């Protein structure tokens, strides 16, 4: 819901990153809550197997990865440093949790409650920092909307053209998608900034889709050439 609000008020490339941040924080919080739930149930377990412990360790490590990416996005989006610090603190906590879980073999259920002790605090902190980050994102976007000059009102890329561009990117080899997603977004932005009509932007998106398979073939051919040489 929040991301839909963001999408109406900000350029596509910022929205994509804001959306990634919101998603990463939500996913990290969800994983932390799962670990917290596992801790609550742990007393009912007789023995926790090595593979179960490995699963919990992977969840903690995944939290750490998502928070690492979130910190980069927080800097990129210009959020307050306190959000980055909060995420950094949670990332360290997730790292400790993963480390502890990684050092154990199978344990008794009651031991798991000790091992997962950090999970409750982690989930709590992540819920708070996610809320603060989302509120800041909304504030930034509201400010951007309020300060937008009339001449800039027409400079937002056409959303439909953006969707077409993203559709064209999906056809391309995986390794090239990031580059072309950014390149198409940039060109669409330039078109909009040059006051190109909505129709012109739409045609741009259509042409990208129309030539996506040719571009895919060229990229694959270039990759084969690189392998051969």
């Amino acid at each position, binding site marked *: 819901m929040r991301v839909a609000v963001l999408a109406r008020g900000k350029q596509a490339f910022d929205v994509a990153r804001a959306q990634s941040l919101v998603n990463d924080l939500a996913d990290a919080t969800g994983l932390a809550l799962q670990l917290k739930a596992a801790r609550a149930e742990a007393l009912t377990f007789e023995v926790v197997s090595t593979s179960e412990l490995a699963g919990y360790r992977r969840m903690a490590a995944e939290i750490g990865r998502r928070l690492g990416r979130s910190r980069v996005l927080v800097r990129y989006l210009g959020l307050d440093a306190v959000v980055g610090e909060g995420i950094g603190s949670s990332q360290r906590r997730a790292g400790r949790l993963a480390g502890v879980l990684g050092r154990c073999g199978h344990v008794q259920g009651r031991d798991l409650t000790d091992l997962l002790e950090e999970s409750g605090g982690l989930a709590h902190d992540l819920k708070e920092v996610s809320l603060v980050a989302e509120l800041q994102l909304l504030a930034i976007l509201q400010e951007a909307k309020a300060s937008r000059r009339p001449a800039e009102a027409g400079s937002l890329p056409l959303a439909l053209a953006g969707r077409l561009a993203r559709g064209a990117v999906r056809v391309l080899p995986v390794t090239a998608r990031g580059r072309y997603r950014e390149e198409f*977004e*940039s*060109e669409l932005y330039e078109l909009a*900034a040059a006051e190109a009509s909505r129709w012109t932007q739409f045609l741009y998106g259509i042409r*990208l889709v129309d030539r996506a398979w040719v*571009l895919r073939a*060229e990229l694959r051919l270039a990759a084969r050439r690189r392998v051969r040489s």
Partner: protein
Amino acid sequence: MPGPKMTLQTQAVLRALLERPTHELYGLQISKAAGLATGTIHPILARLEGLGWLDSRWEDIDPAVEGRPRRRYYTLSPSGAEQARLALAGARTPIAGLLPGLRAEGGLA
């Protein structure tokens, strides 16, 4: 390694790039200079880049500071410029005379 198929569009792109071989241009600028529709040249650029005729790089800006996405800039490589000149000289369909009529209207820099 064989050169690219010298279609009219490929010739137009190469001529546009050879007009200012040391200048870096991003996709929309190349489209405009070549008189081709926006959104149509990426396969050509990918082919030329794959052959080593073109180099490309991201614009060195911080999008958060500039408030816009970074551009992907293209330029002819030194060997590419030479090969492009030779290829255009040998192309059967000279299009230089057609270019002014093909140039797209628009206000992009």
